[in-house]
């Protein structure tokens, strides 16, 4: 029943609009994500161009604010989250020996909500009053007071993006719990599937809370409620609490699937099994749990009681423990391994390295009294770009180069792959490393102008940003090249790779594992 007629599918555009196939949907997600990465990347270049020198030269401050806001929303909700969902779609069924995702039609729906939601967000930029300009965190009172429909479009777009992610997560949980091949126990499951499985719970528990927060914002804007207005008994800080109850788990939503990628790539190219598989699983689960009780470290300066500051400080520092376990496990996996450094491995090692720097600056930020100094400076900007680019984006490029030969059936050009990595690595550090110094010296974030003493670091940063974005053209080129032609990939692809996805041909047939494989 599950084979035969399903191998036929509509051709042309209808294939993509109506598909229920996890591989097609995975591809759609990845293409969408890359498109949004370009959009968000261009916005970052607008920001960096304006910051090339002090004074106002290219854009007016209101538009600058829209760019910082929409850049963040696009990169988080349009690029990183969909890209990882795309990877999950492609890989989880292949890794656990399932014929497809558990709920294939819903799978298509969770993808197709995205382009519509993104359109809504982009439309906001063209409305009278402009797009959202109060920062991606949408704090009141700024975002209650901004006039025009821009913020409303953003809110409804967030609702739709939330629906999409919740549906996608439900699908991943159902797939992992119900679709594993016989013998594939949970504790034999590849770490990438584990990472995503836990991430899915984070999404289901946190995104509805964001939906609640922005719903209150919407009713405050248009329906006369006073959730965030102290004059009527509300509290603007209430929004911050509700928002960050979502916002902090969101950070781990972005990074846990990437941890799964590192845990997949490093053993392959170190030619050793992952060190401490079980502790990796428990560490991931601990990080997920802790992520729900640290949210107020984003708002130390808001005037919380001392007990609150202390609790959130200690809870935040605790996250360093399971995260440290993971980093040490990756390093121990490489210890005395027969290492080679193909592109995916470069991304994985580079990612662990960059992420660790971001983790350490995070530890600095977790210290409440120190954060009073760092809050809302470029130090924070540097920190979260180290975490999200080093963790998530490096993980993504590692994953794509690792599995591209499997998906397309062609090896990519290794030389270009390495160029892409090194240019991104250098460009990224050039962009964000100086921002640590800018922040410590007191340069505030989200301001289109700055004092003269910050010129030099800002110019390095701008050069680095252009270099990083330009390097992505290499990625686009080699990915396209690998789709069209290139050296044929074997089904094994990588000498040291293990797992069910390497037992099927490259590229895999339209339907795989119609009969589940036996896992010993």
């Amino acid at each position, binding site marked *: 029943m*599950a084979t035969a*007629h399903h191998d036929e599918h*509509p051709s042309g555009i209808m*294939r993509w*609009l*109506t598909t*229920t196939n996890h591989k097609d949907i995975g591809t759609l997600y990845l293409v969408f994500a890359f498109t949004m990465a370009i959009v968000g990347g261009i916005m970052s270049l607008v920001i960096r161009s304006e910051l090339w020198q002090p004074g106002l030269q290219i854009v007016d401050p209101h538009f600058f604010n829209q760019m910082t806001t929409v850049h963040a929303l696009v990169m988080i909700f349009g690029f990183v989250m969909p890209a990882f969902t795309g990877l999950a779609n492609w890989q989880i069924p292949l890794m656990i020996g399932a*014929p*497809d995702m*558990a709920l*294939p*039609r*819903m799978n*298509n*729906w969770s993808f*197709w*909500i995205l382009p*519509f*939601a993104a359109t*809504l967000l982009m*439309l906001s930029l063209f409305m009278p009053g402009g797009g959202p300009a109060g920062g991606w965190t949408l704090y009141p009172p700024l975002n209650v007071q901004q006039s025009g*429909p821009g913020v*409303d479009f953003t809110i409804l777009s967030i609702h*739709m993006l939330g629906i999409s992610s*919740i549906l996608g*997560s*439900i699908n991943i*949980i*159902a797939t992992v*719990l*119900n*679709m*594993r091949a016989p013998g594939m126990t949970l504790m034999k499951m590849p770490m990438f599937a584990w990472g995503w499985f836990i991430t899915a719970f984070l999404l*289901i*528990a*946190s995104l*509805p*809370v964001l*939906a*609640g927060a922005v*719903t209150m914002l919407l*009713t405050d804007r248009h329906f*006369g*409620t*006073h*959730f965030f*207005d*102290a*004059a*009527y*008994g*509300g*509290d603007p*800080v*209430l929004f911050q*609490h*509700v928002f960050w*109850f979502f916002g902090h788990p969101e950070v781990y939503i972005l990074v846990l699937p990437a941890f799964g990628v590192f845990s997949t790539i490093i053993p392959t190219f170190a030619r050793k099994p992952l060190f401490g598989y079980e502790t990796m699983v428990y560490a991931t689960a601990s990080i997920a749990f802790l992520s729900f009780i640290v949210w107020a470290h984003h708002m130390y300066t808001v005037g919380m009681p001392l007990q609150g500051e202390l609790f959130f400080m200690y809870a935040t520092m605790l996250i360093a423990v399971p995260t440290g376990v993971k980093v040490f496990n990756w390093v121990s996996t490489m210890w005395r391994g027969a290492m080679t450094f193909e592109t995916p491995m470069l991304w994985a090692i580079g990612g662990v390295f960059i992420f660790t720097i971001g983790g350490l600056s995070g530890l600095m930020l977790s210290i409440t009294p120190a954060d009073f100094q760092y809050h809302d400076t470029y130090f924070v900007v540097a920190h979260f770009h180290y975490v999200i680019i080093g963790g998530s984006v490096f993980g993504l490029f590692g994953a794509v180069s690792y599995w591209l030969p499997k998906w397309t059936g062609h090896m990519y050009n290794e030389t270009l792959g390495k160029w892409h990595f090194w240019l991104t690595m250098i460009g990224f550090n050039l962009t964000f490393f100086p921002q640590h110094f800018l922040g410590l010296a007191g340069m505030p974030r989200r301001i289109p102008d700055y004092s003269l003493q910050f010129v030099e670091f800002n110019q390095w940063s701008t050069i680095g940003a252009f270099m990083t974005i330009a390097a992505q053209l290499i990625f686009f080129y080699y990915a396209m090249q690998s789709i069209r032609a290139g050296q044929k990939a074997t089904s094994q692809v990588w000498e040291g790779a293990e797992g069910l996805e390497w037992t099927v041909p490259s590229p895999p047939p339209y339907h795989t594992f119609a*009969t*589940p494989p036996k896992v010993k």
Partner: protein
Amino acid sequence: MSAANGGYYLPNPSPWPIVTSAGLFSLALGFVLAINGVGFGKWIAIVGAAILIWVMFRWFGEVIGESEGGKYNAQVDRSFRWGMSWFIFSEVMFFAAFFGALFYVRHWAGPWLGDTELLWPGFDFHWPSAGPKGPIAIEPDMTPAASQFSPMGAWGIPAINTAILLSSGATITWAHWGLLKSNRAQLITGLFLTVALGVTFLSLQAFEYIHAYTAMGLTMKTGIYGATFFMLTGFHGFHVTLGTIMLIVILGRALKGHFRPDHHFGFEAVAWYWHFVDVVWLFLFIFVYWF
């Protein structure tokens, strides 16, 4: 845990997901335009809503057809069960955001605002409150004056509604027992009673809202009390409405002879959902109306 053979049903390519997404887009676009004073916005929203309703008929119809056609094996059934469970969990978290807002205001933000003269001179906080600039709540021993509001008491309509929802939880369980022992009359009677109780609940709540707006001076704009009251009860009422529609659908299916003692996920999903709105109501009754 896993299928012993390749019997997992994989649906063919389907137009419904993208049509649903387009409907959702149209609804959102029209809604935003409408609330920003663009006249034709509401027509875009209505078109979007119409698309959504139409596509639900078609999409659910297709799933029901496949289910009754025997295409779903036990493993597919489990996928649906996991899916519905975690969907309900996501709804729990959605309500948690609003309950969290209520607790935060009542236990922290409100007292902070009232306790120090620095923040708002002359304001003492006690619940129910509409804040320093909002209307004052009428206490039982107070003579009402202009620009005051009455908080919603627990022991009138809300208590009756609690009894109604709890009974409806019992009637749907009774209907389920009927289904399990192939007593179709009990199944249909039980479902009918549940629908009737759901509709009664909604009518009473509508009456309560009208009363609040017309006689009690209590509206969404009545400071933080009105905001949390109407947000929490309103979203709950919306969920009861959805649940009632779902109940009507499975009542119709039961009348058509759908569901078997060993194959009735659709029924159970609705029953779970109904119990979920029931439990949320209990929290509302305790924390919004009673204390």
